[in-house]
C-alpha cells in the first residue's frame, strides 16, 4: 500500500474514533458542557490535560527548535513543564473548591466586581484566540504536507471535526476525545523516537540514549554532536547563545504563562474533589513529561542525523560534502514542500551546510572554497521528516501525521471551549442576561463555540504574523494578566477589586506593548528586536515575567490605598482554602 493511502487510512481511522467518542458523550446540561459534570477521573483528566496542553507546537516544532537551539531549548522544556508545579500548588485545588465553571467566574466572584469579570473575559479571549490561531494553522500544515491537500482544505476538515465534538459534547465530549488523542499523539511521538535511538545509540529508551554513546564510533552522543557542529562553525550544542538573564526570564514567563492559561486551568474544574485536582496535576505532568523528556533526545539525534547526512566526510575535504545529485529520497520529498532549500552558491554541485554568520569561521570557510551556507532547513522538519530520515516503515510516517493532527485538534478544542464558556456563561449569564434559562445558556454555549471555530479558522488561514510568535504572545499575556490576580485572590485577603483590575490592565498593557514594539503584530515593529534594545536584556518572549511582576506590584499597591474587600469575599477566600 502506498504512503498516501496508508496516511488517509490512519488519519481517517483516528477521526472515526474521535467522532464515535463525541457521539457517546454528548453534553445534556451546562454543567456537562462547561466542566463535564465534574465526574472525570483524575487519571483521565491527567491524560486529557496532557493532550489539551501539548499543541501542534509541542508535537511538531519543539524538538526541531531544541535541535537548533541546543542548550537554550531548555527554556521550552522547563518553561512548559514547570508551570504545572505552580498550577498544582498554587491554583488548581483552590479553584476546584471554588466549584464554579470558569476562570472569569472566580475573578468576578472573588473580587466582587462585574468589571473585574469582564476584564478577565477580555484577557481570556485575547489569550485563547492568539493561541488557537496557531493550532488551526498547525492542522492545515499537517494536512497539506501529509495528505497533499491545500492548507485551506486541511483547515476546513479540522474545523469540521472540532465543530462536531466541541459543539455537541462540550467539555464532556472534549475530555474523552482528548484521552484518545493523547494515546495517538504519544504513540506517534515515541515510536520514531525509539527506532532512531536504537539505530544511533543501540538503546531503545530516548532518555537514556541522550546520555549514551553512539554505535558507530563509541563517543558520547552529545560530545560528538558538539564536535561536528563546532567544526562547521555553529555554536556548541550543549552551550547556548542566549544570555543567562534572557534564559531565566523566558523560562519564568513560560512557567507562569502555563499556569495562567485558562484552557489548562479549567481542566481542573472537571474532577470530583480537591484532592483529585492535586493528583490530577501530577498525572498530567507525568503524561506530558513522557513527551518532554523524549523531545531533547529527538532534537539531538535529528541534528546529528541531518548534519552527518550533509557532511558525510571530513570537513574541508572536497568529497566531504554530500553531492546534490546523490541526495536521498527524503531530501527530495521535503524539498518539494519548501521545508528544505538548496542553493549552490559555489557551484560545486555539493551541499555545504555551516554557520556563515560566524565571523570566526569565515576565513576557514573561504579556505575550503565555500561561498556561504547552501542549505535552508525549516526546524519543523526535524519531527515530520525524522521517520523518513531514519528509513522507518510507511505506517510510522502515517502515524506521525495522525499524531500531529491529534495534538493540534485537542488543543484547539480546549481553547474553543473556554472561549465559548466565556461568552455564554461569563458575559451572557453572569452580566448581560442573568435570567437566561439553562437550556438557553447551553444553546448560547453551542452557538458561541461554533462562532469561535469560524473565527479560529479564519485566523488560521490568515494568521496575524508568524505563528510561533503569536504563541509566545499568548504565554506572555496569560502570565501578565490572569495568573497574578488568581494567585492573589487565593493567597491574599487584602487585595480588592481596584487592585485586581489595575493589576490586570497594567500587566496586559505593558506586555502587549512590549511585544508589539519589537514584533509588530498587525503592524511594523517600532524597534529592531535585538538584545541591545531590550529592557534589562529581556526578549519579548520573556517579558511576560516582568509583566506579571508589574501586575503583582500594582495590585498590591492599589489595594493598600483603597478599602479592603467586603466580608463576603473574606468568607469566600476562607472557604476555598480548605477542602471541606
Amino acid at each position, binding site marked *: 500500500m502506498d504512503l498516501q493511502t496508508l496516511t488517509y487510512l490512519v488519519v481517517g481511522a483516528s477521526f472515526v474514533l474521535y467522532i464515535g467518542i463525541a457521539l457517546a458523550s454528548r453534553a445534556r446540561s451546562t454543567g456537562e458542557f462547561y466542566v463535564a459534570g465534574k465526574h472525570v477521573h483524575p487519571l483521565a483528566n491527567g491524560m486529557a490535560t496532557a493532550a489539551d496542553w501539548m499543541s501542534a507546537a509541542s508535537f511538531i516544532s519543539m524538538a526541531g527548535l531544541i535541535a537548533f537551539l541546543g542548550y537554550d531549548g531548555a527554556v521550552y*522544556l*522547563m518553561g512548559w513543564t514547570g508551570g504545572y*508545579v505552580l498550577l498544582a500548588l498554587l491554583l488548581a485545588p483552590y479553584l476546584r473548591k471554588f466549584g464554579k465553571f470558569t476562570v472569569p467566574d472566580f475573578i468576578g466572584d472573588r473580587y466582587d466586581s462585574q468589571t473585574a469579570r469582564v476584564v478577565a473575559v477580555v484577557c481570556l479571549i485575547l489569550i485563547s484566540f492568539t493561541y488557537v490561531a496557531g493550532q488551526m494553522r498547525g492542522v492545515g500544515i499537517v494536512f497539506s504536507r501529509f495528505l497533499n491537500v491545500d492548507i485551506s482544505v486541511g483547515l476546513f476538515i479540522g474545523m469540521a471535526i472540532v465543530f462536531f465534538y466541541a459543539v455537541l459534547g462540550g467539555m464532556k465530549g472534549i475530555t474523552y476525545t482528548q484521552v484518545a488523542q493523547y494515546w495517538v499523539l504519544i504513540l506517534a511521538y515515541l515510536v520514531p523516537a525509539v527506532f532512531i535511538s536504537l539505530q544511533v545509540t543501540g538503546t531503545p529508551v530516548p532518555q537514556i540514549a541522550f*546520555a549514551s554513546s553512539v554505535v558507530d564510533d563509541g563517543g*558520547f552522543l552529545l560530545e560528538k554532536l558538539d564536535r561536528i557542529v563546532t567544526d562547521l562553525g555553529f555554536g556548541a550544542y550543549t552551550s547556548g547563545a542566549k544570555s543567562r538573564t534572557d534564559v531565566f526570564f523566558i523560562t519564568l514567563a513560560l512557567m507562569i504563562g502555563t499556569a495562567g492559561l485558562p484552557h489548562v486551568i479549567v481542566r481542573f474544574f472537571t474532577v470530583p474533589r480537591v484532592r483529585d485536582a492535586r*493528583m490530577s496535576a501530577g498525572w498530567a505532568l507525568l503524561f506530558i513529561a513522557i513527551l518532554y523528556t523524549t523531545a531533547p533526545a529527538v532534537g539531538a539525534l535529528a541534528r546529528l542525523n541531518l548534519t552527518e547526512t550533509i557532511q558525510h566526510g571530513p570537513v574541508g575535504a572536497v568529497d566531504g560534502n554530500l553531492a546534490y545529485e546523490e541526495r536521498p529520497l527524503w531530501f527530495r520529498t521535503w524539498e518539494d514542500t519548501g521545508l528544505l532549500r538548496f542553493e549552490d552558491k559555489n557551484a560545486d554541485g555539493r551541499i555545504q551546510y555551516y554557520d556563515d554568520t560566524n565571523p570566526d569561521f569565515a576565513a576557514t570557510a573561504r579556505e575550503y572554497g565555500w561561498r556561504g551556507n547552501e542549505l535552508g532547513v525549516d526546524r519543523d522538519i526535524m519531527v515530520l521528516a525524522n521517520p523518513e530520515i531514519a528509513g522507518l516503515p510507511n505506517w510510522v510516517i502515517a502515524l506521525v501525521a495522525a499524531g500531529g493532527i491529534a495534538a493540534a485538534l485537542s488543543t484547539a478544542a480546549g481553547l474553543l471551549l473556554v472561549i465559548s464558556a466565556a461568552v455564554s456563561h461569563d458575559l451572557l449569564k453572569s452580566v448581560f442576561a442573568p435570567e437566561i434559562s439553562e437550556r438557553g445558556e447551553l444553546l448560547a454555549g453551542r452557538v458561541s463555540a461554533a462562532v469561535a471555530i469560524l473565527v479560529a479558522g479564519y485566523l488560521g488561514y490568515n494568521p496575524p504574523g508568524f505563528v510561533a510568535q503569536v504563541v509566545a504572545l499568548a504565554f506572555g499575556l496569560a502570565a501578565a494578566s490572569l495568573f497574578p490576580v488568581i494567585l492573589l485572590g487565593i493567597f491574599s485577603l487584602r487585595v480588592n477589586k481596584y487592585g485586581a483590575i489595575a493589576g490586570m490592565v497594567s500587566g496586559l498593557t505593558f506586555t502587549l506593548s512590549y511585544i508589539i514594539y519589537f514584533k509588530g503584530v498587525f503592524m511594523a515593529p517600532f524597534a529592531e528586536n535585538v538584545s541591545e534594545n531590550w529592557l534589562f536584556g529581556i526578549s519579548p518572549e520573556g517579558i511576560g515575567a516582568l509583566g506579571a511582576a508589574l501586575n503583582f506590584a500594582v495590585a498590591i499597591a492599589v489595594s493598600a490605598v483603597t478599602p479592603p474587600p467586603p466580608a463576603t469575599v473574606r468568607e469566600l477566600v476562607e472557604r476555598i482554602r480548605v477542602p471541606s
Partner: protein
Amino acid sequence: MSTNKRTYWQDNLRLVRFCLTIWFVVSFGFGILLVDVLNQIQIGGVRLGFWFAQQGSIYAFVVLIFYYAWRMSVVDKAHGVTED
C-alpha cells in the same frame, strides 16, 4: 477563621514554600544560574548542568507534584478537613 483552619493553612503554606524552593533550585538554580558549575561534573555522556536543564528538572517537577498531593492528603486528614 477557626484555629484548626488557621493551622491547616499554615501547614499548607509551609509545604508549598518547601516544594517551591526545590522547584526553583532544580530549574532556575541547577539548570540556569549554576549550569556552568554543574557542567564540571559529567555523568555518563551528559554534563550535569545541561542534564538538569533538559531532563532532570522535569523529573523533579513530576515528583514534586505527587509529593505535595500525598503530603496534603495527610495534612487534610490530620486536620479533619477531607471531603467525604
